[in-house]
């Protein structure tokens, strides 16, 4: 059983470790504001972490001992066929798609259940895009002004830490986002737009049963989609900005999310 004392200790620790949702953090902060002893404790806990980091700094420029260098030489690399990292595999698949001009998805009876589920992902993402992008007054539920809240909320609902990638360098500003149903489960939608009002959406949902994939491209009714699965999450980017533009976006999104 968790006693009230343990609960307060958990809350203080979780606060200084950044493990609380914004709402919960707000509550604990409010409690700290009114309780000097608790404030003192939170301060001590923070001091403790600082002391740990000061006492054991990360020394990145320290040379390797000959023993360590020799050990590293012995790390076996996978055989060439599988040695390609996922990042390279993605880049390669992207290049292949671009070169071959092989737009669109295979259609027909060849679908395995896995492919059908991946297609369902595209259908959901394209559906959400089509419904919300034309909206003038209510394109999003939570606007970009409250980005931190938006991301924390959606992360909490999805049960995974997600992020709204920064696409400003590519000319797309975050409009905001919303929670969506994906069958009985939650999914997240982020919307971006250019200064000329061209919009794109990033659809994110949990995906733990399908295997990781490289970038896949799909073009349906004038909407282009790049999607990929990087468990535990699946992503789909939808827009009508054209394939070349969307490729740049997909690459940037992937790079940013990979660094999480």
């Amino acid at each position, binding site marked *: 059983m968790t006693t009230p004392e343990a609960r307060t*200790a958990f809350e203080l620790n979780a606060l200084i470790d950044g493990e609380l949702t914004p709402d919960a953090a707000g509550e604990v902060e409010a409690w700290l504001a009114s309780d000097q002893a608790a404030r003192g404790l939170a301060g001590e806990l923070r001091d403790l972490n600082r002391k740990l980091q000061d006492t054991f700094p990360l020394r990145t420029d320290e040379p390797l001992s000959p023993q*360590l260098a020799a050990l590293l030489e012995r790390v076996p690399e996978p055989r060439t066929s599988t040695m390609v990292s996922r990042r390279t595999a993605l880049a390669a698949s992207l290049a292949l798609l671009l070169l071959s001009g092989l737009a669109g998805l295979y259609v027909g009876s060849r679908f395995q259940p896995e492919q059908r589920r991946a297609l369902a992902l595209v259908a959901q993402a394209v559906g959400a895009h089509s419904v919300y992008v034309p909206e003038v007054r209510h394109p999003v539920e939570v606007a970009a002004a409250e980005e931190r809240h938006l991301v924390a909320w959606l992360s909490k609902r999805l049960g995974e830490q997600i992020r709204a990638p920064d696409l400003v360098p590519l000319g797309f500003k975050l409009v905001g986002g919303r929670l969506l149903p994906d069958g009985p489960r939650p999914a997240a939608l982020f919307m971006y737009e250019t200064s000329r009002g061209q919009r794109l959406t990033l659809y994110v949902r949990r995906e733990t049963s399908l295997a990781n994939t490289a970038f896949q491209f799909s073009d349906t009714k004038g909407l282009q989609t790049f999607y990929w699965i990087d468990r535990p999450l699946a992503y789909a980017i939808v827009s009508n900005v054209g394939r070349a533009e969307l490729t740049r976006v997909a690459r940037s999104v992937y790079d940013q999310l990979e660094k999480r």
Partner: protein
Amino acid sequence: MRRRDAIAAEIPRLRRYARALTGDESEAEDLVQDCLERAISRIAQWRDDESPRKWLLAILHNLHVDGVRRRARRPLHVDLDKAEHVAAAPGSDSGSGRDLEAALRSLPGEQLQVVLLVGLEGLSYAEAADVAGVPVGTVMSRLSRGRDRLRQLLGDGGDRQGGRTSPLRRIK
């Protein structure tokens, strides 16, 4: 990225974690070597598309725990120079680091692990739970107990008032 490079990139972290675990430079270096040795022998456990960090931290910790157990069965050996260092000068400037090191040594291994994974390595509770192979709730209680003990030890050794470091139950 080649596996080799991915593992090499983690070495500074492994060294830091090993130093904090052992409190001894050369012991830490040995531990990192043992860790790589074992990682190579179990390379298939590492999923290529993930950072090897958590996997390596877990290996290193398990090796440390095994080593402590092995040494516990041998006659106690105390390095007097070191023992004096640890005991010396709680009030002095460099003392806080030494106090901290001594306090860390007195923590049960499972508490020390999460205190370091979260407080030093910056892992989330979920990641720390992954490394330790326990539920998140267990991480939270170990963390809370470990930090409580550290605060008490550091409080007693330093010049703080005893009252400031009394346990959490004083609140509310």
